């Protein structure tokens, strides 16, 4: 403890960031394997099982493969933007983890930074991440990526509205925008109960925000040949891939923090450390994402837009108004 308090703040922040980055990137690697395994099982296949026991070394093999692939740039591409876009995506995806608290002990929060407006910071950072996708598609200089990025922009705007609306209900009840504060406010009852509508809207919009099936029109393989990342190859494609999975983990973490009580133990099972609960809850979300992907076919684009604007947004707004009214009346 003495050593810690004597160290300069930037050193502590650096070490914390390194640990969180390591954990998060490892989580990405294995959530990818987890996804491939679960999808395979649901499709009656064994999944990756050649590299190490149960395919445990598959992420390493994939990483090596990505590293050694050729990095192509189309002639028609805008070179600077084309090369920058994956980094925008990745940096924004990673940046969100700077403010996510994973657990809590007597020494303080388990996270890089404890920001008093954490949820706003996350939404701000992940919104910038859309630029990565949009610029990637636009700067590729070919048709499919452009279509993908146009879709992405429209989809992000439509669904981010409903997503933010669904989250505000939680903020009203908790009375704070600090993620740790929101978790503390769920000591007695998790917000999934009073905010069940908000929760459902959040998980639907979160799927759309992370461009995953059945809302993956941005990268629809069967119609856009990968969408915004059609032209990308090798490591740059890998960066988009990492960013997508990190975003998935981020929204899983936010859902855990906002609706499932964060690191609070259910049913008074407090002897299990909070971090275990956090990981279990977030893992449940990631499993749900995978399950969703294996089950549902891709939506048609006009239906996606209709659903976003004519169903999700009004319901989210109504939920917000009712929550606000109830909180105002009951105090």
């Amino acid at each position, binding site marked *: 403890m003495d050593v810690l308090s004597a160290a300069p703040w930037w050193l502590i922040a650096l070490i914390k960031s390194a640990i969180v980055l390591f954990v998060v990137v490892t989580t990405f690697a294995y959530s990818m394997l987890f996804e491939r395994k679960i999808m395979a*099982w*649901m499709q*009656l*296949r064994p999944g990756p099982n050649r590299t190490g026991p149960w395919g445990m070394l598959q992420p390493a093999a994939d990483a090596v493969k990505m590293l050694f692939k050729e990095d192509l740039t189309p002639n028609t591409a805008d070179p600077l933007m084309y090369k920058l876009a994956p980094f925008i995506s990745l940096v924004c995806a990673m940046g969100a983890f700077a403010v996510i608290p994973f657990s809590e002990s007597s020494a303080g929060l388990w996270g890089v930074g404890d920001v008093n407006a954490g949820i706003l910071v996350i939404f701000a950072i992940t919104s910038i991440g859309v630029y990565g996708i949009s610029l990637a598609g636009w700067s590729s200089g070919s048709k499919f990526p452009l279509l993908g990025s146009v879709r992405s922009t429209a989809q992000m705007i439509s669904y981010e509205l409903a997503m933010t609306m669904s989250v505000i209900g939680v903020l009203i009840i908790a009375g704070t925008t600090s993620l740790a504060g929101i978790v503390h406010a769920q000591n007695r009852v998790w917000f999934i109960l009073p905010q069940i509508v908000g929760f459902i809207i959040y998980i639907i919009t979160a799927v759309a925000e992370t461009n995953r099936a059945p809302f993956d029109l941005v990268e629809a393989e069967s119609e856009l040949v990968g969408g915004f990342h059609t032209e990308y190859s090798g490591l740059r494609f890998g960066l988009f891939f990492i960013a997508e999975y990190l975003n998935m983990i981020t929204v899983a973490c936010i859902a855990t923090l906002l609706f499932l009580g964060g690191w609070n133990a259910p049913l008074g099972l407090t002897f299990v450390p909070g971090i275990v609960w956090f990981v279990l809850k977030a893992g449940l979300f990631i499993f749900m994402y995978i399950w969703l992907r*294996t*089950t*549902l076919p891709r939506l048609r684009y006009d239906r996606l837009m209709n659903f976003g604007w004519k169903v999700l947004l009004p319901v989210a707004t109504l939920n917000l108004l009712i929550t606000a009214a109830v909180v105002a009346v009951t105090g």
Partner: protein
Amino acid sequence: MGFLGGVVALAKGFATTFQFAFQKKPTIAYPTVKMQHAPRFHGLHELRRYADGKERCIGCELCAIACPANAITVIGAENAPDDRRSPGERYAARYEIDELRCIFCGLCEEACPTDAIVLTPRFEMSDYRRGSFIYSKDRLLVPPEAGVGTAPDERPGGIPSDLGAVIQQKSTVDIEAGYGATHRGEILKTERTGLAG
């Protein structure tokens, strides 16, 4: 239908995929686990002998004529009186099958008047050079010490286990018996002990 019907339909879909995750997978981990073949599977050829060690093939070229893929080349020759290779007048001086052309239809087997050419259950013959797929007599003919070879009708069937361990999926056929029934199985057992062990 309506909203509730939609929810029920969604739930059904999710239940289906969830159930599938726990079902037994039909995949067979091929190199380590092998499937059982039909007893008279059409695989690699072999040229049989008579019990006295004489070659059955009389070099009549009927197999080459029957072959729809033109994969067989036979060049017959007269038996020398002091060195009779086959009981008849002639024998196959050269007998070559291009296994890359072969379609494993088994017509050669049916055309053969002396039951000399037969198809064994062996199917793993991958190699690095195209030339290696032209099997001549040195690889087709049952060596004298290996017996006579088995006619398909007498073969219990199964799969030769010369590449890795064979795990029986269904015990309908006796693998060991089927393996021993072809001389190629025996040869490969000795040639590739490294892999078989």
